[in-house]
C-alpha cells in the first residue's frame, strides 16, 4: 500500500487534481464492470480442462491457463468480484465503526478519553500482525477476512472524525444551540453529521483499496479465502510455483487487475479528501 500511496501522491499532488466526480465515475464504472462481468460469466469458463494445462496467452485464452487448465482471464474476473465484495463489506463495516466511535467521542470527556486510548492502542500494533491475529482467531475463510479487515481499518478514520467532531463541538453555534436547549442528539444530527459526512465518504473510499489489498495479502499467506475459490491473493500465491516453471502469465492478470482496481479507488479517495478538506480547512 506504500507503493500505492507513493503512486497516487507523487505527481498527483503537484498537478491540480482532477474533479472527484470524474475519478469516482472511473472507480465506480470499474466496479460495475467487474461485478456485471463476473455475474454474466458462463460457469463453464471457470472449469478445469486437462487438455489445456499451462497454455500461454493466445486467442482462446487471452491471459493463458494455469496448471489445472483454468482460464486465467475468467478466473481473474471472478476473483476481482470476490475481492470487491469482500472489500466493500469490510470497508462499510470499518467506516461504521469509525463513525460510531467518532460520534461517541463527542459525547463527553470520559467517552473521548476511552476512544482516544482505544484508537492509539490499535494504531500502535503492527497492522498486518493484528490482521493475521484476528483472521486466525475467527478461523480464516471469507468471513474471517471480512471481520479481520473491518476490525483493523477503522483507527485512522476514527481519529480524523474524533478530531473533526471536537472542532465542531467547540464551535460557537453548537454552544448557542445547547444554550437554546437543544439536546446532544439534536446537535449530533444537525451540526455534527453534515460536517462529518464528506470525511466519512472520503474515508470509506480510501479504506476500500486497503481492504482488498489486505484480503489478497491474507489469502496469499493462506489465512483468507479457501484456496480453490477464485481470489486474487490465492491466485498470486499459486502462481509462485508456476512462475518457476516459466508460466509467468498466471501471475500477470490477477496482479494487474488488483493494482488497477486499488489504484482507481485510491485516486478517487484522494480527490474526495482534498475536495472535502478544501472549504473548511480544518482537516
Amino acid at each position, binding site marked *: 500500500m506504500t507503493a500505492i500511496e507513493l503512486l497516487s501522491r507523487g505527481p498527483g499532488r503537484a498537478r491540480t487534481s482532477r474533479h472527484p466526480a470524474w475519478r469516482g465515475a472511473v472507480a465506480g464504472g470499474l466496479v460495475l464492470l467487474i461485478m456485471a462481468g463476473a455475474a454474466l460469466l458462463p460457469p463453464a469458463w471457470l472449469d*478445469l480442462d*486437462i487438455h489445456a*494445462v499451462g497454455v500461454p496467452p493466445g486467442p482462446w485464452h487471452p491471459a493463458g491457463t494455469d496448471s*489445472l487448465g483454468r482460464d486465467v482471464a475468467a478466473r481473474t474476473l471472478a476473483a476481482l468480484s470476490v475481492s470487491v465484495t469482500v472489500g466493500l463489506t469490510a470497508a462499510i463495516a470499518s467506516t461504521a465503526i469509525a463513525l460510531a466511535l467518532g460520534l461517541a467521542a463527542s459525547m463527553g470527556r470520559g467517552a473521548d478519553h476511552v476512544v482516544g486510548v482505544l484508537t492509539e492502542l490499535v494504531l500502535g500494533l503492527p497492522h498486518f500482525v493484528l490482521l493475521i491475529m484476528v483472521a486466525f482467531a475467527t*478461523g480464516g475463510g471469507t468471513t474471517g477476512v471480512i471481520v479481520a479487515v473491518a476490525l483493523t481499518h477503522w483507527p485512522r478514520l476514527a481519529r480524523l472524525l474524533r478530531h473533526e467532531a471536537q472542532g465542531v463541538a467547540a464551535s460557537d453555534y453548537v454552544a448557542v444551540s445547547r444554550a437554546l436547549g437543544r439536546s446532544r442528539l439534536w446537535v449530533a444530527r444537525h451540526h455534527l453529521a453534515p460536517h462529518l459526512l464528506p470525511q466519512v465518504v472520503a474515508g470509506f473510499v480510501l479504506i476500500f483499496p486497503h481492504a482488498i489489498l489486505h484480503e489478497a495479502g491474507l489469502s496469499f499467506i493462506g489465512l483468507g479465502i*479457501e*484456496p*480453490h475459490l477464485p481470489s486474487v491473493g490465492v491466485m498470486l500465491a*499459486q502462481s509462485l510455483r508456476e512462475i518457476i*516453471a516459466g508460466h509467468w502469465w498466471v501471475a500477470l492478470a490477477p496482479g494487474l487487475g488488483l493494482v488497477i482496481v486499488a489504484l482507481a479507488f485510491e485516486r478517487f479517495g484522494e480527490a474526495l479528501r482534498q475536495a472535502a478538506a478544501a472549504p473548511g480547512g480544518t482537516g
Partner: protein
Amino acid sequence: MRLLFAAALSAMLFAPVAAVTARPLVLAVGGEPEGGFDPITGWGSYGTPLFQSTLLRRAPDLSLVGDLATDWTLSPDRTRWTVTLRDDARFSDGTPVTPEDVAFTYNTARDAGGLVDMAGFEEARVSGPHEVQLDLSAPRISFTSRLATLGIVPAEGYGPGYARAPVGSGPFQLVEWREGAQLVVEPNPYWHGGEIGFDRVSFVFGSEEAGLALARTGQADLVAVPASQADSAPQGMTPLNVETVDNRGLMFPMRPDTGQTTDTGAPIGNDVTADRAIRVAINQAVDRDALVTLALAGHGRPATGPADGLPWDNPQGGIPGADPEGARATLEAAGWRDADGDGLREKDGLSAAFDVVYPAGDSTRQALALGVAQQLRDIGLHVTPNGRSWDEIRALMHAQVVVMGWGAHDPSEVMNLYHGSGAGAGYFNPGFYSNPTVDAHLEAAERAPDFEASLPDWQAAEWDGTTGFGAKGDAAWAWLVNLEHAYWASDCLDTGARQIHPHGHGFPITHDLPDWRWTCEE
C-alpha cells in the same frame, strides 16, 4: 558453517581421487527425525533404520527375508514366534548382538506407550543362546511387519541419550548429526550384510529448494523433487520416478445422519453418502487417468484399492472408472433422478449434494477435489470442494467426504482402515465403516499360520465375490490415484532394484542404500 561445508564438499568432489577410494555420497531426501534415531520412539518405520538392523527385512519384491534372524517360526496356535538369531551380528562398538538385546527391545517398545504399534504383543523371552520367543496375546499375522521394521537396540547402553548417539547393528554408524543441517554416517565395520559402496554418506536437510540448488550445482547425488520438477533434471542427473502405494482417495461417511455426535461433539453421518449407490456411482464415474494428469502432472497411476500392487491387494474388488453411463444407470436404478431438470439428482426430496473436504495446504488434494467435483457434475451429483485445516477436518470427517491418503508395507493398515472395531477411530476409519463379513475375513487373515497363507483372506476382505470393502462391494472409499515419488539421481549412481514405496516422499528411498554403488570410474 554451511558455506564451509559446501566448500569442503566441492574440494572433495573435484579433487583428483584415486580410483579405489569411493567418493562420499550426498543425499537430500528430507526425513530428518524430530526425536532422533531411536527405533523405540518410531525411528525407521519407513525406509531403513540405517544404524540398527531388524529381525527380518523386505526384499525388493516385498517378500520377507532374514536380517538378524536366520530362522523364524510361528507356533501352531499362532501366538508365539520363535526366532533364531545369526551368531555373527555385532553392534558398531564391536559387542555381539544377543537374544537379550532383542527381548529388551521388544519389551521396551511395548512399554513405550504406543509410539510403535505393538498391539497384541505380550512379552519377549530369551529361550536359548541364539533364540528368542515373542508371545502374542492373540493371533496377529500382521505383527510380522513389526519384525521387519523394529530396529534392535543394545540392552547395555540404551538410555535417554540413545536417540542422539545411536549404537546398532545396522549398515551404518553415526559420525555427526547437526540438527536441521546434516547427518554424516560411515559404514559399520562389523556389519553382517556385506560390503557397502561408500566410505561416507551425508544426508543434507533443509527446504526442497535447497535440495534442488544442491543438485543443480552438482553437490548432491540424489534429491527428492516435487512432481512439477520431475522431468527437468540438471546435467549429470537422471529423473527417477518411483512407483508407490502412497495413495489418495475419497473417504465416505457410511452412516446416515441421525443427529448423533462423537464424544467431542463432532457430527456423525451423511444421508447422501450413506447410500451405497452414490458411493458405487462415484467409483464408476471418476476418470482416474484424467486425475493423474491433472493433479500429478502425469506422475502417478490410477488407484482402485488401498494397497495397489502389494501382495494383499485384490484387483478384482476395484472398479476402473471413467464410465459415466454406468454411473448414471446405477443412480437411476437406486432412485436418484433429476425430476426438476436442474441437472442435479434427487431422491425422496434429498438432493445428491455433498462437500469434498481437503486440507487447504495440500495442492495435490485440492486438485483432486476440484477434478472430482467437475467429473461428478456430469452424472448429476453436486460436489462442493471445501478447503480446511486438519484441526477443522477432525471435526468434519465423520460427516463429510474427505480426500485422504495412506499406503504402507503392512496389511495391518487394511485392518485399521476397514475393521469394524476401529469404526470412528482416528484418521483410519472416520466414516464408521463396519461389515461383519469383512471383519470375519480380516480376523481370519490375522489368524493365518503364516504370512503367505494370510493373503487370500486379506484379498477376500476387499472382495469375496459377494461383498467386501472394495468398490464392487461396500465402496467404503473411492480410491483415486497412487503418487509417484520423484527424485533426481546422479548418472554415476546405481540404486539397484527398488520396491514399491510407501506413504512419504523422500526417506523411504534409503531402504536399499547398502546395495547402492557408484558406476563411474573416477
